[in-house]
Structure formats: structure tokens, C-alpha cells
């Protein structure tokens, strides 16, 4: 179906712009939802633009994302909407795109300002505030705990900016509420790894009261480990991303809450922005998209 | 001894060139049929077709009156044809027992029946003269002669109608060979037909009922063994008969100058101290029974096994170099040829050219480490001609050469590089008589140039024909040194057995 889209794009006479959506791992539900949202939007607006969607194989493969940007320049797209795998290292490639006259919109993960200005780029950012989201779910969790309770944090890939922001948000919420952070380890965004790490943390800290996970895959893993240890009643879990697989667990009370950053709309905001920019020369402002707390009551 | 067991009509086989052409042959029940021919004549190919390793192109084979066309080795031995291969088919990590029985491991519901197996193995090891071998030993740790006997044991383990033996005695001493011959004669008497391929023509004549000579893939004659002599066979094999010029040995000028000094060396395998001095321009033969440590001694001399005591030094131009590893050995002008060409010599999957030129120091074809491909090819071409190697060209894959021709390539390897001391372990294994004489002449030439050669052989006649001195090892001990003027075959043989005299003999 995707290649058809490109084929359509080449239809003679069509002067619709082509927008390239460049993302991180398309193997991750969050980005898949994002891509699906974009695709649905394109179908509704077929007359307005064409869409090429690309992701990298593995979230940390920066060089591949840079290659993707170059490839999009080579295939002559009009705009690039990018969720950067790294907030610094893709900037030079984006500068090349800008030189080639391509409009660039930054979504999901904010590019570093200093480096943008070094290249003389002004790229508008559309996306959620990860720190805020993490703080929000953390504060909600704290309201169910007593000060001094032991909590643990599961990080994603430690080099990932999102992971770092969420961890910071978690830490702030926990500090503010007087919780005791006894462990902080990376489970590499991975579910199986999360079970292993959580199980070990539970052994080491038998009195643990809560686990804060930087994404929902790890929350799923943490929930499996907690149930294997028979500590469902003792340990609260929160996640981030609001993937559908987590809903059963939230309903069942195994997971307390997660954050919805409206993945399905994230790319759409970016695309709309790009379309606007293609039509007018007005400078674009950054735009923060909403993050919402999801709990058992909000799912019903 | 009546009915035709195996009858072959108009058999053809070619690879890129014809290898067997119009073979017609009948082998009777209980007959031992000798098959001889020069290296590359097609003997192994013939045996391989019967054993189902390769398929024929054309022709008709009948076994006991029934048409026989095996689709693979399994088919062949289910039909009753068993083969002891020239390039041994033993599997190193498996035990002796498992190897012997590999074609048909006794089992119930696939679970191996250990006890039954062990008994049968022990009795068969006893028969081939390996009674003292532990059936649980991993095959990979055994010496070449033992491996060759195992290959034989493996092929007679199952009852068979036709037994093909492809150079079964190439690595065996005369004593071991005669044990094997006794078994073969016994099998024939009980009705098994045997095809016996060998370059030891005297043996072939003694054991066989009839002999067939192959030349370039065609049968030149089939005749009763009794009606022929070695010289006649050789004439048939080569088409134009000439013996090697053995008188060359007298022309050798021996200089007393020592080139290799071995002082009181011992290794894990050679517990008794060994000392001797080798001089420029002499050929030293090393005799011994199987397992007596001949290979071990050459390995130690080339620095392949660590010494536990003593020292080896190389003298040249007033300098003295200690040999401690193969690198120093080679740099100081030593060359080594291992006994097992498959594992110690060949580079499988590589062309003849590479196999010939790699190991040498590539002097003369390389300057400053850069190869000159034209000079390299020319040098290789010359050697191929000199040793009459039968191959389709320097580009041919070494795996496709016949066993004897592979051996020639390995010898050629060392003739080219500028070595002064040659350590050759069974250099003539699997080589036909004509070429053997050629190799002896090459050795004499080397000696004439003041080079030194130490070589082993399981044939005492060969050692006596070429050597200036003969060292005898017995039970890993250097027991005696003979010189050309004071030796006789019986004395040498007696020395070989000396260390066994008081203990249970190892070899029957």
C-alpha cells in the first residue's frame, strides 16, 4: 500500500507537494500509531499532499536516520516532518535539507537550540513536553503513596533524550513528594529486559512500593515481574505512551496510570504545519501538544 | 571360486576429461583382484563408482547377476559392497568404536547398544593388530598407521560381498601389512571378493589371484598374478619402462660439515634422550614400527612439539641458531613434510598453484613481499612437469587431484624453496613406482648440492635404497644407527623390535 502511495505521487500533472515523515523505530507501537494517524490524514486529504513514511530499524541507529534524511533530499520531497533520533546529530543533515529548499518541521523530540542557531536554522517544534508528562504521572502516583516509600525508575535507552527527560520528570515528582528512589536502571525500552530487571530489583528491595517506567512496554514487563513475585497488591506501576496492550492492565488495577501524548495526532500536527508553511512565508511558532493522564477512570 | 560376483561392462566416467574409458572387468566370488596403475590412472575413481561415492556416466555393472547402480554409499554397502578409502573417512571426534561401526551402529529404537558394540569392536581391533587400543579413544588422537588400520577395520566390520581396499597398506609397516593380508586372504576364502588397489606391486602380486593394470583410464591388461613380475607390471603401467638411476647415490660427495646438531632432546612423547649430528650432503632414513615415534622425532626437529629437554641447533656459515618453533626452523632453511597430507598439507578448495607456492618462502617469485604472478606460474609449471603431476592445469582445485598427485604437489612445495635441510615424513606414501624413482633421484640431486635430508618410510627397502645412514627407533627410543656399509634388512628389523622383545609386542 505504501509503495502505491509513491506511485500515485508520480502521477503526471499532479503538483501536490510530497511530505516525508521521518521517524524513529517503526517497530515501536508509539511510532506505528503516529504513522497510522498520518496515513489516515493523508487519505482524507489526498488532493492536498503525498506522503512518504520512513523509520529506522532500531531506535539508536542515528546514522541510518541521517541517511534517511539524505535519501529524502535525493528523492526531492517538499517538506520533511521529523522525529529526531538525536537532538544534536541530525542537525547538519537537516541543514542540507534546508539548503535544498525543503521545509522542515520537528516533532516529538526537540532539537537543540544552540546547534540550530549555529547552522542558522529556525525549525519549529511541535510536540509534547516529556518532562511535564512524567511529572504528571509521577504526581498522580505519589498521591497513592506515603512519603518515604521506596520507588524504582526504569529508564529507556540511557542515551535517548526522551528517556532522559522522562526520568528527570519522574525524579522531580518523587522528590517533591518525598519518596525514596532506591533504584534507577535501564531496561532498554524492552519488555523482556524489563521483567528481568524488575525481578532483580524486587529481590533487592522487597519493600518496593512503586515502579515508574519510561514507556509502556517496560510497564508491561514490570507488571509481569510483579505478578510473578506475587506482589500485585504492594507495588504500583506507571508507564508512558498509552499503548493499547496496557489498557487491560490499567482496568485490572495492575498498572496505575500512563500518559497519553496523542501519538496519532502528533504527526498530523506536524504535517498540517508543513502544509501551512508551504503556502505562506510567515514564521512558525513552536507548538506544545497536550499530554493527558490516563487512569482506570479515563479508559472507561 | 566359480560364479562371477561382479561384472563390469563398458564403464565410462569423465570429469572435465575422461578418467575411465571402456572398462570391462569380471571379478569372481572369493577372488582377490589386484588393481594397479600410475598416479591418476583412475583406480580410486573406479573404486568410488563401485562404492557409490561417485556415479558412472555410462556402462553396466552387475552384482551376482543383478544390475547394480548405487545411488549413494549407503546403497552400496546395503548391497554388500564396502570400501576402505584412500583418503581416510574417519571422524575425529568420534571414538574408535563409533567410527568402526558408523555405517551401521547397532541400536534399539535408535539408542546405541553400547555393550554389544564394544565386544564386536574389541574382537575386530584384536584381529587387525590393534588389540591394545582402547575402543573409547577419540580417533583424532591416533597416528596415521592406526588410522589406516581402523579404516580397514571399518570396512570389514560389516559382512560384505565385495571389499574394495584402496591403498590399505600405504602407511603400514611390512609386519602390519602382512597381518592385513592374512585377514584379506581369510575373507576371500570365505567367499568375499576383494579389489585390492596398491602401489606396492610386490604385495599385489603376492596377495592377488588376478591383476588388472590401468593406464590413463583404460585397462591395458588383466592377467593371473602368478604369470607376472614387478618389472612387467611397471612396463604395463607406464607404457615405457625405465628404472630409476640408483647408481646416483655413489656419486654423492659427503662433506663432514655438520649442519644440524641434536643434543639430548626429549619431548612428552620421546622420553629417552636423542642425540645426533646431521651433515651437509647426507640422507638419513628413519626406521621403526608404527607408533615408534618417527613422526614425533621429525616434529620435534621442526619445532612443532615443545622440547622437554636438550637443544636443537642449526649450523650455517659459522652461525648457530637454536630451533624452538616452526618459524625459526623455516627461517634457518628447514623444510617439513607431514605424514598426513589431508590435515597437514593441503589447502582444500584452492588451486594447484596456491597449494604449491604458499608455504615456501616464495623466494624467487616474490620481491619485497610482492608476488610476481608470471614467475610464480612458470616455476609451478616447471615443477609439475618435473614430477609428472597429472592435473588439468595450475587452476585446478587440489581436491580433484588423485591422492598420489596431491602428494607430489606437497613435495614440490619444498623443492622449490631454498631449504637446506629437508624433514620428510613418509614422502612417497601413495606414489607410484615410476615416480618414486624420480623422487629418489631428486633426493640424490639435493644431496649432491650439499643439502641434508631426514626422511621416514614404512618400507625398509626404500630406506636402504636411498639412505646413507638409518636411525632405528623402537618404542620411542633411538636404539641404533646403521651406515650403508654395515646394514642388512634383518638387522634393521631386529632393531625395530628391540624394545618390544622383553615386553608384550605391540605389533604382531
Amino acid at each position, binding site marked *: 500500500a505504501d509503495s502505491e502511495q509513491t506511485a500515485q505521487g508520480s502521477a503526471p500533472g499532479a503538483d501536490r507537494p510530497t511530505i516525508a515523515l521521518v521517524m524513529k523505530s517503526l517497530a515501536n507501537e508509539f511510532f506505528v500509531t503516529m504513522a497510522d494517524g498520518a496515513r489516515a490524514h493523508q487519505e482524507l486529504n489526498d488532493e492536498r499532499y503525498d506522503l512518504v513514511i520512513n523509520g529506522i530499524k532500531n531506535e539508536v541507529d542515528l546514522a541510518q536516520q541521517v541517511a534517511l534524511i539524505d535519501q529524502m533530499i535525493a528523492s526531492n520531497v517538499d517538506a520533511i516532518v521529523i522525529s529526531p533520533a538525536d537532538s544534536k546529530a541530525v542537525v547538519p543533515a537537516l541543514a542540507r535539507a534546508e539548503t535544498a529548499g525543503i521545509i522542515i518541521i520537528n516533532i516529538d523530540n526537540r532539537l537543540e537550540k544552540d546547534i540550530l542557531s549555529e547552522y542558522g536554522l529556525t525549525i519549529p517544534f511541535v510536540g509534547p513536553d516529556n518532562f511535564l508528562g512524567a511529572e504528571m504521572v509521577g504526581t498522580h502516583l505519589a498521591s497513592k503513596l506515603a512519603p518515604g516509600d521506596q520507588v524504582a525508575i526504569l529508564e529507556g535507552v540511557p542515551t535517548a533524550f526522551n528517556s532522559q527527560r522522562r526520568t528527570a520528570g519522574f525524579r522531580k515528582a518523587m522528590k517533591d513528594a518525598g519518596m525514596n528512589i532506591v533504584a534507577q536502571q535501564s531496561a532498554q525500552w524492552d519488555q523482556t529486559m524489563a521483567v528481568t530487571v524488575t525481578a532483580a530489583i524486587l529481590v*533487592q528491595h522487597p519493600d518496593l512500593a512503586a515502579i515508574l517506567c519510561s514507556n509502556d512496554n517496560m510497564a508491561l514487563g514490570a507488571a*509481569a515481574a510483579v505478578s*510473578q513475585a506475587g506482589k500485585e497488591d504492594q507495588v504500583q506501576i506507571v508507564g508512558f505512551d498509552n499503548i493499547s496492550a496496557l489498557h487491560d492492565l490499567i482496568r485490572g488495577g495492575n498498572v496505575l496510570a500512563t500518559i497519553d501524548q496523542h501519538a496519532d495526532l502528533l504527526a498530523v500536527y506536524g504535517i498540517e504545519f508543513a502544509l501551512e508553511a508551504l503556502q505562506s512565508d510567515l514564521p512558525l511558532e513552536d507548538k506544545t501538544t497536550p499530554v493527558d493522564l490516563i487512569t482506570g477512570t479515563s479508559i472507561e | 571360486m566359480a560364479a562371477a560376483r561382479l561384472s563390469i561392462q563398458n564403464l565410462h566416467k569423465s570429469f572435465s576429461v575422461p578418467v575411465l574409458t571402456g572398462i570391462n572387468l569380471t571379478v569372481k566370488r572369493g577372488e582377490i583382484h589386484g588393481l594397479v596403475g600410475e598416479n591418476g590412472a583412475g583406480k580410486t575413481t573406479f573404486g568410488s563408482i563401485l562404492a557409490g561415492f561417485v556415479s558412472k556416466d555410462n556402462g553396466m555393472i552387475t552384482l551376482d547377476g543383478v544390475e547394480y547402480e548405487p545411488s549413494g554409499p549407503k546403497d552400496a554397502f546395503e548391497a554388500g559392497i564396502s570400501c576402505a578409502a584412500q583418503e581416510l573417512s574417519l*571422524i*575425529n571426534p*568420534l571414538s574408535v568404536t*563409533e567410527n568402526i561401526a558408523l555405517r551401521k*551402529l547397532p541400536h534399539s529404537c535408535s539408542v546405541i547398544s553400547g555393550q554389544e558394540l564394544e565386544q564386536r569392536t574389541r574382537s575386530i581391533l584384536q584381529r587387525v593388530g590393534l588389540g591394545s587400543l582402547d575402543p573409547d579413544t577419540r580417533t583424532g588422537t591416533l597416528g596415521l598407521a592406526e588410522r589406516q588400520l581402523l579404516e580397514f577395520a571399518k570396512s570389514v566390520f560389516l559382512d560384505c560381498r565385495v571389499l574394495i581396499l584402496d591403498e590399505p597398506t600405504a602407511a603400514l609397516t611390512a609386519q602390519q601389512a602382512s597381518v592385513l593380508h592374512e585377514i584379506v586372504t581369510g575373507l576371500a576364502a570365505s567367499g568375499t571378493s576383494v579389489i585390492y588397489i596398491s602401489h606396492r606391486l610386490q604385495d599385489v602380486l603376492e596377495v592377488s589371484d588376478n591383476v588388472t593394470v590401468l593406464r590413463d583410464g583404460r585397462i591395458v591388461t588383466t592377467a593371473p598374478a602368478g604369470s607376472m613380475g614387478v618389472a612387467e607390471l611397471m612396463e604395463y603401467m607406464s607404457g615405457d619402462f625405465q628404472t630409476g638411476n640408483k647408481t646416483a647415490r655413489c656419486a654423492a660427495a659427503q662433506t663432514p660439515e655438520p649442519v644440524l646438531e641434536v643434543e639430548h632432546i626429549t619431548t612428552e612423547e620421546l622420553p629417552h634422550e636423542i642425540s645426533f649430528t646431521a651433515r651437509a650432503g647426507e640422507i638419513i632414513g628413519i626406521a621403526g614400527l608404527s607408533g615408534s615415534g618417527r613422526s614425533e622425532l621429525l616434529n620435534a626437529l621442526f619445532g612443532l612439539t615443545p622440547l622437554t629437554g636438550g637443544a636443537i641447533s642449526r649450523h650455517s656459515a659459522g652461525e648457530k641458531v637454536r630451533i624452538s618453533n616452526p618459524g625459526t626452523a623455516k627461517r634457518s632453511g628447514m623444510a617439513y613434510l607431514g605424514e598426513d597430507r589431508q590435515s597437514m598439507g593441503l589447502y582444500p578448495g584452492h588451486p594447484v598453484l596456491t597449494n604449491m607456492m604458499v608455504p615456501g618462502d616464495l623466494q624467487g617469485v616474490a620481491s619485497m613481499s610482492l608476488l610476481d604472478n608470471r614467475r610464480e606460474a612458470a616455476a609451478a609449471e616447471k615443477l609439475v612437469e618435473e614430477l609428472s603431476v597429472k592435473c588439468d592445469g595450475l587452476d585446478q582445485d587440489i581436491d580433484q587431484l588423485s591422492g598420489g598427485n596431491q602428494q607430489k604437489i606437497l613435495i614440490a612445495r619444498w623443492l622449490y624453496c631454498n631449504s637446506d635441510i629437508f624433514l620428510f615424513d613418509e614422502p612417497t606414501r601413495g606414489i607410484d613406482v615410476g615416480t618414486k624413482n624420480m623422487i629418489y633421484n631428486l633426493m640424490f640431486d639435493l644431496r649432491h648440492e650439499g643439502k641434508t635430508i631426514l626422511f621416514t618410510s614404512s618400507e625398509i627397502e626404500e630406506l636402504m635404497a636411498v639412505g646413507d645412514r638409518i636411525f632405528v627407533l623402537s618404542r620411542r627410543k633411538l636404539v641404533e644407527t646403521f651406515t650403508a656399509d654395515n646394514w642388512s634388512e634383518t638387522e634393521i628389523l631386529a632393531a625395530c623390535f628391540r624394545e618390544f622383545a622383553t615386553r608384550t609386542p605391540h605389533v604382531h
Partner: protein
Amino acid sequence: MRSLVKENFIFASLILLVIFFGLAADNFFSLVTLRTILNQLPALTVVTVGMTLVLIVGGIDLSVGSVLGFCATIVGMAMMNWDFSIVTACFLAIGAGIICGSVNGILAAYLALPSFIVTLGMLEMARGMAYITTDSQTMYIGASIQKLALPISGTGVSPALVIALSTVFAAQFILTRTVPGRHIVAVGANTRAARMSGIDTKLYRMVVLAVSGALAGLGGIFNAAYLGAADPNAGAGMELAAIAAAVIGGTSLMGGRGSVAGAFAGVLIIAILQNGLAQLGVSEPAKRLITGGVIIIAVFIDSWRIRRDRMRTG
């Protein structure tokens, strides 16, 4: 007996590791730790058994991790979307594994392509199929499958672990005591000679890869049970862990030599290491450094065995 002595050295590494973590982490010596580790074993164990057989026959199977992931998603789909019973779902998953493995096997054995490349191709393709099956979504399954991974009441061991251990025993028995087992070793050690002995070398190569696929399928079930969910990314990178476990346990990458029991010891080392490091809560870079070091030290200790063997037999 002989093989016990043989594996001694690898068990020495194991004991050293346990002692180290026992001293370094507070609660390491506890029943909970033991249970935690035992729970982690089944998937990697069965995958490693398959890998060991493939390595012994002289091949390699890089696709195990992806096939595991693909089969896990099959379990998820079968139970959640197609409403099959857990038993049917498991059969489907193992069937899917066998198909992937057989494709590997046919390409590697009968078309004589290098198994490394064939299974590398399958690594990509099976992962692609895993994404397609669940539309790249993690699929929550819940308690129905988790019971496979939870201790059978009163025993402390889960059905998954029992099955995994049985696999180890069966494979070790087959390898050392049966005709096909000895044939596998023969094919791996010297294919030409094995063929000359009438062994159908291609069939063995093919079957062993198919078995590895089936075991990866079983591993997928265990993974789904462990997570209570079907994760299309499950098993990523597991091929390297399985090869490492096999090689630490004395299996040669050149074929013809290996032990399933040793490979299981390798799995234990990896599991204990992961668990111990997580209990210590060391940082990610430190985890990497220690993991790398332990892997090297484990084969180093094991290499003494080989050296001694060599000395002993000359």
C-alpha cells in the same frame, strides 16, 4: 562420568560468579533470587539447545530470536483474536517455528547456501512477519498463558522450566547415546567422510535447523508466558546470547564438538550475570563492561579444559 569432568571447568566459572554476587549483593542468597533466575531460564534454554545442535552439525542459526518473536505473536493472535485454546495456540506457534526452520534448512542444506546468510535473511523476514501479525503492537494476553511460567503449586518450578529442562536432557541424551546424535557429530566434524559412510548429511543439516526453529517456537511460547503478553520485538539479539551460551559451554563454531549440558551451564552463567548485575543496580556502562569481561573469562577458564585434554591425549 567422563562428560561430567569435562564440564567441570564451566561449572567452576558458574560457582565463582555465584559467590561473587553472593558477597556483593545483599539479598542474592535467597529463595526469591533462585526463583527469579529459574523463571528467566526457559526461553533462552530451549533456544540454546537448538542453537547447540545447529552449531554441532556445522551450521549457525541467527534467526532464532526473530522466529521466537514471530511465534510469540502467533500465540498472541491465536489466543486473543482467533479465540483458539492455549493448546492449539501452542501447536500453531511451534508449527510456525518449524516452518521457518525448515525454510532455513531447505535453503541451507539442499541449495547449499551458507546457513549464516540464510538465517540472517530469516532474521529479517521473521521479524517483519512478527510486526505484520500484530501490526507492530504489543498484545496483552494475561493470566491464561502466564500460568505456564508460574510455579506449579507446591513445587516452586514452573511447567515452562520443566519442559525446558526435559529438552536439555533429551537433547543431551540424543546427542551422546543415539545413532542420530552420533551422526550429527559426524556430519559436523567431517561432512565428506560422513557422506562416505552413508550418512544423509543434507537431511541432518535440514532437520537440525528445523528442530532449532521448533525450539525457537517453544521459546516464543515461554516468552509470551513470561511476559503475559506477545511482544513482536521479543527475542531481539537473542541469537548472540544463545551462541555465547553454547560456546561458553564448550561447543565449537567449526562444528563437530559440543555439549548441550555445557550449553545449559552457559545459559545459567548469562542468567545469573544479568540478574546479579540488576540486583547490584550498576550503571549501564558498567553492566556492559562486566558482561563482556565475564564472557571472556568464562571461555578462558573453559579453555584450560581443552588444553588439558590436549595434553592428556598428546
